[in-house]
Every structure is written in structure tokens, then in C-alpha cells.
């Protein structure tokens, strides 16, 4: 082996060269290099390699051991002094610690919330390959995004595109009634979905019993969750049993574990998609106008752009005629599954419950603000108190402390306080976790505290607090010159006055911003809830009557039965009610099929609907007359928006028109005043009332008074009329208000955290004021001896605040001034 080519391990050598200074570097490294060669010759490369690295370790531990040992020697002292100081000034310590504790607790809660909200659907396998297909439709009025695609698209794609590994459709349709043996249950539409079998291969839905590969292959099979199984079957084994859903029998082929809260797919029952096709329902065979949720899992390495173009082409190929007719442009979009929850604002027909990314940003801001307020507090109080530590600093310096050591001392004091605060904060968090869960309607398990990410964040927060909050006081304290200190010529309160003002003003600004935000939010929510909808939503009891056998012959007598109850003053049947989905049909004025077709929201009503909901007919005469003459005929009553949509110049012009191209052309019977049939967030679309009987909803208008009693009477009446049906009801105003539940919650969270932030700031101010008053004890004493009364002393205390007040008022005024801009920024 040629000696000249044996070199020591490069990394170790480089590290060593960093440790030694220049003087020794050549010497030592050269020696090591030589010895390395000898060792390689004598004992082999491995031994030599180990020897070299061991030298490195010994050198480093030798050098750093020095520092560590000396530091540790001082830490005992620092700890002792820190604890002594905390207990010596109990009030300030209390204020400091509670301020920090509240701040940390708030940050932790906000972090937990954000972590939860951003974790939706991230637990599935291979989430980077899972997407939702959504439709973007552009027409003359703009672009709308629909949260789904036509049903036939999925099987077509699976057959013709190898890029798809698995694909499944989901469709929650109407509410259902479930019967097992002799027990009746009602399930809401969103909990009972039709699903393709592939859904189990895309989403992680572990099975307790049953085979996930074949569970939903056959028609008329269902898969239920553990909770649902308990509800229906109790202790029986559900597998293989028959559930009767809306007069059809389904076999239970699988039971899954309960679905965690953070997934867009929430269900109690999944029905096989094959059930629909076996019934041959027209609705799922249309290529245009159906928007069902479609989830796909792509193969590895798929070019998304190419695939998306392929999807768009498939849909366009199959619906070219209609798209041309309606002059619309269709584009498909692949939405990553983890984006669905937060980034689906404004999508139409979105069945998945979703949050809003805006809230996440806002809450993060609040968290940061609160954190800053708590830190400013700490800095202020510490700096203010620093006079008491001045002597200590002076003597330490005289005894030979370096500035760096003093910095370490004071920062570690802050860290100790931070740790103590954190201990309090964590007990508060654990204590209040369930309250927080209720408040935000998310489910955070206690196990989240054991998550390594979480622990890391906590340590990060504590370190940040220690460093941010502690660095200025530490720097300030360690800068005292012993000369000044011991001569007591250190003038306290003046030098730090500027910083204190700045920090207090900073706190104030943050508080003002938060308050404005909370107020604006509250205003928005109240505005939405209080705005007139164009119809009367109060005192309405809605009963779902689909499938109850209501028809043209018996509906009047049914209504009369209910009207017999004295507190019920109105009853009306309809195919839909405000807040529920309506049918959407393509309708055009006679002869204008190609030029003027529009999708109208259509609802069938009976003769009492207008009076029950207090709607206004503004053209066509008297509503009662129309109902009387045209009951059950094919005419339509349109709303104002529909008239405008069709391009007619006045309501009177509309009155003469007929619609559609088949006999007998349904005439326009009247025009009614627009009302918000969807939430206030949406623009009013064109709507039509049809006069054929709608049998799905019965609206009862009742007098205010004893609601409970009215409800009981109505229920009794219902059970006599429909003994075999579940009494499924709700109050309209509750339902409509719940639309804003999400916003209300956020407003509430806003309010609470803002309050906490301000509370911390006030704590700080109180501490400062108390301290300054304490400083002036001598002065007050002297003034009292000279004869000042208590009220005079108050004036002095006032003057303490005075200096900062001017600035505060200015900030407040400008904040209010900018209210409008803030409002538009927050506008949802």
C-alpha cells in the first residue's frame, strides 16, 4: 500500500480543524495524520478509523465539558435566586405567571384547533394520490364550481383511463326511514349515502366485520358503522340481517369502526351504488346536470394535467348538445383530498361539511397577537422591576461575572417562569379541553398531547417566550454599571419609560384590532340572521311527509285535522320548504327552446302556501283566485328574478306568456316577489311555483305561546293519521339559523380569545400601575404629611396614566376610522 495515499477520515479531520485554533492546528492534525497511517499499517484500517474518531470525541468533550461544568456550577445559584425573587415579589410574579399562562394556554388551544382543521382526511393511505373531481361551469353570468360530476362519468373513466386505480361515487339523497323488526328509525340524508364499493379501497375505513373488497358490490346491500349497529341491533350480530329502508330490503354486509371526526365522508349507513342502477333511475344516467361526489385514487406518476384534460373531454363529448345550447363551458378540476375541507368555499351542491381557510388565518393572527401581548406584559413588568435587582447586578459584576453569564442568568429566570406558567397553562388546557370541544364542535382527544409534533411545538413556545420575552429585560439588567448601581445614582423609570410606552401602546393597538375584528364579526352574523328574507320564518313547524301517502284526495282533510288544534293557524303542503333543496328544471318560453332556456328552481305548492309564508303576489291578480281556478293545473307562478332572466321587460308582459313546447302550454299565472329560498349568502335565483300537489313537506303555522303543548298535540295528531311513520319534524327558524352556526361559533371563539387577550393586557397595566404607585410611596407619604387628602393622591396616580393616554386615544380613533376597511376585509 502506497503510504502517501492513506488519508484520515475527511469529515473527522474537517471537524477537528474547526475545533483547534491556528497555532495548534497544523501540529496536531499532522501528528494525527501520521499516526493514522502507522495505525493502519500496524492494526488495520478499522482500528485506525475508530481511533481517529475517538480522538475527535475526546477533544470536543474535553473542550465543552469545561463550559458545561462551569455553567452547571452556576445554575444552582441562578435557580435559587430566581425562586427567591419570585416569592419575594408575589404580586408581580402572580401577574407575570398568570399572564403568560393564559397566553400559552390560548396559543395551545388555537394550535390544537388549527392542527385539527388542517388534518382532515390526511389519515388515509397515499393521500397524495387521492382527489375529488369537481366541475367548473362557465357561462354568461360567470363561473360556478360544482362539487361533483355526472354519475356516468365514473364508470366511463374507469373503463377508458388507466390512470385511475380506484374510483367511487357518493350520493346522499333524501332522508330515509329505517325499520328493523318492529323498530322505526329516521336517518338524515347526509348520514345515508349511496357509495361505490371502491370507496373502501380509497379511504381508510377499517372493517370490524365483513369483507371490504366485496361489501357493496351487490345491489341492496349496506355497510353500517359500529355506533349505528348498536343503535339498530343492540347486542345482536348485524351481519347478514335485513334492514328495511324506505320499503326496500337491504342486507347488512359489513360493519366499520366509527368514523373519526376529521373526514369529509361521514356516514351511518352506506348503500351500494348498484342499488340505484338496478332500479334504473333516470337521474343517474344523465351526463348533464347531475353532480355527485366523485373520489378517485390515481396510479403512481400520473400526469394530472393530461388526466384532467381527459376528464373534461369525456364530459364534453357526452353533453356537447346541451352545453352548446346553454352556452356553457365545462372544465374538470382535480381537487386534492386534503384540500377539500378548507378550500371548498362557494362550491355548489357540496355535501361534505367544510370549514373555511379564512378562519384558520384569522385564528392564527389572534394566537400571535395574544402571544405578543403576553410577552409585552412580561417585558414591561420585568423591566419596571429591574431597579430592585440593580444591587445584585452590581455586586455580581464586581465579583467578576461576565455580561454573558448575567444574560444567561436572567434568561434562565425567564425560562423558569415560562416553565411554571406552562405548567399552569397545561393544567388549564387539560381541564378545559372538553369545554373547548363543545365550543368549537371539534373532537380533540387527550391522546393528542402525546403526539411528538405537539411536544415539539410546546417546547418551541416555551423557548420563544423565554427568548423573546426574556431577552430585553436580560439585556437591560445586565447592562447596569456597578459604579452607577452602588452609588445609587441609577435613575429608574426614566430610561425605560420610552420602551414601556411603546410596548403598552403596542398592546393597546393589538387589543383594538382584535376588538374591532370581534365586533365586526358579530355584526356580520347578526346582520345575516336578522336580514329580512322575504318570507315569514317564525312559528313554523315543518313535518316531513314523503312516503306518507298524501295525495290529491286526502290532503285537505289531513290539513283540516291539524287545523283542529287551536294553536295551529295555517297548514300547507309543498314539495320543498325554504332551506331545503328544490328541483331544478330546464324551462323555456314557448318557441324559445334553443335561445332562452334556463334552469329554474321549481317547487310545488298548494293553495295555502302563500298565506302561511306571507309571500306576495305582485302580478296576476289574487292568489286565492288563481289557486281556486288553476289548482292542479300545469301553470307556473314565477318570481321577479325569473321574469328578468327570461328577458321580459315587465311583469305584465310576463303574464301573457306560455312556457315549454308541448300541449297544453303551461301559462305564466302570476309573478311573486323574490324571497331568499337559499341562505342570505346566495344571490336570489329564478324560481317557479307549480300547482300540482307536492307531498313531501307539511308546514304548520302556529301561534306563539306554549310551543311544547302545540308540539305534543301535533305529534298525537300525526300518530293517529300516520301510525306507521316516524314523526320527523323541525322548526324552520332553528333550521335557518343553524346555517350560520359555523359563523356563530367562530364569532364566539373570536370574542372569547379577544377577551382573554385584553384581560392579559389589563393585568399587565395593573401590574405596571401598582409598581409605579409603589415607587412613589415615599412621595405620597411626604405629600400626606404636608396635608394632601386621599383625592389629591389619586390625581398623582392618574398622572401616571396620562402620559400614555394621548397616544392611546389617537390609536383608538384611527382604528375606528378604519372600521370600514376592516369590515370589507372580513366580509364573507
Amino acid at each position, binding site marked *: 500500500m502506497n503510504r502517501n495515499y492513506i488519508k484520515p477520515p475527511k469529515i473527522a479531520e474537517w471537524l477537528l480543524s474547526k475545533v483547534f485554533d491556528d497555532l495548534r492546528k*497544523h501540529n496536531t492534525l*499532522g*501528528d494525527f495524520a501520521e499516526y493514522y497511517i502507522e495505525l493502519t499499517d500496524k492494526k488495520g484500517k478499522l482500528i485506525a478509523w475508530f481511533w481517529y474518531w475517538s480522538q475527535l470525541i475526546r477533544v470536543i468533550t474535553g473542550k465543552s465539558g469545561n463550559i458545561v461544568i462551569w455553567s452547571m456550577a452556576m445554575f444552582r445559584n441562578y435557580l435559587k435566586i430566581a425562586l427567591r425573587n419570585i416569592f419575594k415579589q408575589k404580586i408581580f410574579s402572580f401577574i407575570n405567571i398568570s399572564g403568560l399562562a393564559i397566553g400559552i394556554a390560548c396559543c395551545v388551544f388555537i394550535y390544537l384547533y388549527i392542527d385539527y382543521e388542517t388534518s382532515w382526511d390526511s389519515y388515509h393511505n397515499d393521500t397524495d394520490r387521492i382527489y375529488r373531481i369537481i366541475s367548473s361551469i362557465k357561462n354568461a353570468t360567470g363561473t360556478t364550481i360544482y362539487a361533483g360530476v355526472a354519475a356516468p362519468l365514473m364508470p366511463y373513466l374507469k373503463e377508458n383511463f388507466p390512470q385511475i386505480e380506484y374510483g367511487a361515487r357518493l350520493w346522499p339523497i333524501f332522508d330515509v326511514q329505517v325499520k328493523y323488526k318492529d323498530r322505526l328509525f329516521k336517518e338524515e340524508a347526509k348520514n345515508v349515502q349511496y357509495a361505490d364499493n371502491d370507496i373502501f379501497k380509497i379511504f381508510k375505513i377499517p372493517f370490524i366485520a365483513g369483507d371490504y373488497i366485496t361489501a357493496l358490490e351487490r345491489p341492496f346491500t349496506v355497510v353500517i358503522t359500529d355506533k349505528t349497529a348498536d343503535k339498530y341491533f343492540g347486542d345482536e350480530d348485524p351481519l347478514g340481517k335485513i334492514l328495511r329502508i324506505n320499503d326496500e330490503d337491504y342486507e347488512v354486509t359489513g360493519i366499520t369502526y366509527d368514523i373519526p371526526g376529521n373526514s369529509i365522508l361521514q356516514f351511518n349507513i352506506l348503500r351500494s351504488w348498484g342499488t340505484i342502477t338496478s332500479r334504473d333511475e333516470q337521474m343517474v344516467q344523465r351526463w348533464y346536470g347531475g353532480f355527485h361526489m366523485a373520489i378517485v385514487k390515481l396510479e403512481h406518476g400520473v400526469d394530472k394535467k393530461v388526466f384532467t384534460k381527459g376528464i373534461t373531454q369525456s364530459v364534453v363529448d357526452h353533453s356537447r348538445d346541451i352545453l352548446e345550447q346553454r352556452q356553457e363551458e365545462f372544465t374538470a378540476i382535480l381537487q386534492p383530498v386534503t384540500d377539500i375541507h378548507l378550500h371548498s368555499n362557494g362550491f355548489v351542491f357540496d355535501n361534505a361539511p367544510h370549514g373555511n381557510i379564512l378562519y384558520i388565518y384569522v385564528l392564527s393572527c389572534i394566537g400571535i397577537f395574544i402571544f405578543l401581548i403576553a410577552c409585552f406584559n412580561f417585558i414591561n413588568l420585568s423591566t419596571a422591576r429591574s431597579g430592585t435587582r440593580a444591587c445584585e447586578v452590581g455586586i455580581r459584576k464586581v465579583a467578576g461575572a461576565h455580561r454573558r453569564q448575567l444574560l444567561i442568568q436572567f434568561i434562565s429566570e425567564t425560562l423558569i417562569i415560562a416553565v411554571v406558567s406552562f405548567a399552569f397553562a397545561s393544567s388549564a388546557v387539560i381541564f378545559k379541553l372538553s369545554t373547548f370541544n363543545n365550543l368549537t364542535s371539534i373532537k380533540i382527544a387527550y391522546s393528542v398531547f402525546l403526539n411528538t409534533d405537539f411536544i415539539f411545538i410546546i417546547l418551541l413556545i416555551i423557548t420563544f417566550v423565554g427568548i423573546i420575552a426574556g431577552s430585553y429585560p436580560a439585556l437591560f439588567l445586565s447592562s447596569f454599571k456597578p459604579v452607577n448601581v452602588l452609588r445609587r445614582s441609577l435613575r429608574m423609570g426614566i430610561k425605560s419609560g420610552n420602551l414601556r410606552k411603546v410596548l403598552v401602546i403596542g398592546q393597546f393597538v393589538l387589543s383594538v384590532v382584535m376588538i374591532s375584528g370581534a365586533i365586526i364579526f358579530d355584526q356580520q352574523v347578526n346582520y345575516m340572521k336578522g336580514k329580512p328574507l322575504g318570507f315569514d320564518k317564525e312559528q313554523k313547524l315543518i313535518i316531513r311527509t314523503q312516503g306518507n301517502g298524501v295525495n290529491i284526495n286526502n290532503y285537505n282533510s289531513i290539513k283540516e285535522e291539524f287545523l283542529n288544534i287551536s294553536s295551529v293557524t295555517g297548514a300547507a303542503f309543498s314539495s320543498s320548504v325554504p332551506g331545503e333543496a328544490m328541483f331544478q328544471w330546464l324551462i323555456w318560453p314557448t318557441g324559445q327552446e334553443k335561445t332562452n332556456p334556463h334552469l329554474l328552481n321549481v317547487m310545488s305548492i298548494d293553495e295555502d302556501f302563500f298565506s302561511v309564508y306571507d309571500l306576495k303576489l305582485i302580478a296576476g291578480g289574487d292568489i286565492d283566485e288563481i289557486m281556486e281556478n288553476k289548482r292542479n293545473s300545469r301553470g307556473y307562478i314565477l318570481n321577479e328574478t325569473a321574469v328578468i332572466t327570461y328577458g321580459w321587460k315587465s311583469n305584465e308582459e310576463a303574464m301573457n306568456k306560455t312556457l315549454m313546447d308541448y300541449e297544453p302550454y303551461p301559462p305564466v299565472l302570476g309573478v311573486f316577489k323574490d324571497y331568499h329560498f337559499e341562505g342570505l349568502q346566495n344571490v336570489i335565483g329564478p324560481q317557479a311555483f307549480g300547482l300540482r300537489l307536492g307531498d313531501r313537506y307539511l308546514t304548520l303555522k302556529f301561534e306563539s305561546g306554549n310551543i311544547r303543548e302545540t308540539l305534543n298535540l301535533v305529534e298525537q295528531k300525526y300518530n293517529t293519521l300516520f301510525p306507521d311513520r316516524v314523526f320527523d319534524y323541525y322548526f324552520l327558524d332553528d333550521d335557518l339559523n343553524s346555517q350560520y352556526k359555523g359563523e356563530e361559533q367562530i364569532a364566539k371563539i373570536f370574542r372569547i380569545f379577544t377577551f382573554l387577550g385584553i384581560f392579559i393586557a389589563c393585568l399587565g397595566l395593573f401590574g405596571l400601575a401598582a409598581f409605579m404607585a409603589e415607587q412613589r410611596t415615599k412621595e405620597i407619604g411626604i405629600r400626606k404629611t404636608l396635608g394632601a387628602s386621599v383625592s389629591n393622591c389619586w390625581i398623582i396616580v392618574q398622572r401616571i396614566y396620562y402620559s400614555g393616554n394621548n397616544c392611546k386615544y389617537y390609536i383608538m380613533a384611527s382604528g375606528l376610522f378604519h372600521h370600514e376597511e376592516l369590515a370589507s376585509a372580513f366580509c364573507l
Partner: protein
Amino acid sequence: MKILTRVEEFILLAVMQLKEKAYSLPIQKKISEISGEHWSLGTIYAPLERLERKKYLESSLSETTPERGGRHKRIYSVTKEGVRALKKTQEVHNQMWENISEPELKIKRS
């Protein structure tokens, strides 16, 4: 203040023995060989520097070699002061050993 410690003494003697080849590595080897104990390089460095500070040794950089990765060697040589210190130490050593005869060195069984 002139009496050397054992390590210092050995190092100075080794330097004298090694003549021009007296740098850290051969010094360490020689002492290890002669004493029979393994002395690490670290044991040598500190005393070497201390001796140089006390002016008992002086050093100079010599040629570079490829074995050392192209680095210089630091060759040490004993100064007059160093020789004087050695002599003094030897004197004191001898005087301490005076009059101790062989029989006294035998360990008595008691």
C-alpha cells in the same frame, strides 16, 4: 521553581535523545517504549507547550510531509535554561537517593 515534574523531565530528556527528530509523535513513542506504559498524545501536548512557555524548550517549523497531509512538523530543542533545569533536577534527585543502600530497599516482612 526550577525542579521539573516527572513528565516534563522525561519530555526534555526525550527531546535531547531524539535530536533533530524531536516532535510530538516520536517523543510520545519513545517515552511509551522506555517506560512500558502507553502515553497518549494528549499527555504530551500540554507539557510541551508549558515547557515552551517556560522557555525550557524552543521550537521551529520544519518541512512538510505528505504523510501529515502536507503539514509542518514542530521540532523542539532544549534551551540552556532547560539544560540547567534538568541538571538541577538530577542533582536534587541524586541527593534524595543518597545514603539509601540496597539492604534498606528490601521490603521487610512484618
